[in-house]
């Protein structure tokens, strides 16, 4: 039974450099959902962040030009997988 997508499973065929490039692009795009990320879910402070003033997260993090030039485009209402495993 495949529990992950083909996109995930294809990571195994990448070289180190390809993996780094793919992750970098994914990470750039994933910045767009920073404001709506759930409270962090590792460690023992789950949910503790909701009352805290954000620091780096309160600033714009990705230049729109980066997104325009990216391989993948976001449409209004689209979301990226932003949760951490």
């Amino acid at each position, binding site marked *: *039974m495949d*529990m*992950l997508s083909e*996109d*995930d*499973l294809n*990571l*195994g065929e*990448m070289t*180190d450099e390809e*993996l*780094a*490039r*793919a*992750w*970098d692009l*994914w*990470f*750039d795009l*994933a*910045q767009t959902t*920073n404001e709506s*990320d759930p409270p*962090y*879910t*590792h*460690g*023992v*402070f*789950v*949910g*503790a*962040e909701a*009352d*805290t*003033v954000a*620091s*780096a*997260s309160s*600033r*714009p*993090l*990705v230049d729109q030009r980066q997104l325009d030039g990216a391989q993948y485009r976001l449409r209004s209402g689209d979301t990226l*997988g*932003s*949760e*951490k*495993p």
Partner: protein
Amino acid sequence: MENIYFALTEAFNRDGPIVVLASGQAVVYHRIAMMSKDGDWIVQQTAPACARVMAELAVRGARYRPGAPLDIRWLSGGWSSHFEFADDRRRRIRCDFVSRPPRVPMALIDEMFRHPAREPLAAVDPHTLILLKQTQRAKDYAVIAELARRLPPEQEIELTTDPDRVLALAPEVGTSSARPAVRAALAGGGRVAVVTALAVETDGLQQRDRRRVARYQRAAEPYLAECRRLGLFEAPLGDAHPRLCDVAAQQLPPGVGEEVGDGHAE
């Protein structure tokens, strides 16, 4: 171009092995899935290791996020420390540390630093990663199934969450297993019985993790409230750290107790 969390791992370990990349970025490292925006590490439970990590974070302008001080007094009790900074492309970088992660035997952790893996990067192995991923989140169990495929069959059958793998492996390597899903497969209960046993097992793991985190959350409330009142999560790291330690010494119990199966000594 590089994964900044891989680069940070190398930076932390520049003068010797003091951290091991864990959780989401270890999943990326093992090429299981592209799913984590944060970095999680197991840090060696020593004062010099904590100081080395703090120095690397300080030069990057990191701030504490709500969490325990990066100090062995609290790390040794299972607490976690959390940091954040923006990289040179203004991306949000989040760094999380524990020295005593749940469910991982202490001997295994100590061995990581006594005999560090000779890989390009210090990352937890698939077996340890499976233990780390037995959290309260459903999606971690899909990752566990893929990680388990990297293990020898006799280990895979004890940890996989994939019913097809249980059914396939049970006759071959499962005859002495006590795992209910394996016993169900061998008893001829069929696929439904195996799926049911796996679901019950997963729910048990999720509930156990939920109870564990809830104990820490309750114990941390006065400490977090005082840290917020003092603005310590917005202060520069060098200022914040000693003050966090002062507040923690008053308000944060070193440990919160464990239930069987939670901790590090099993």
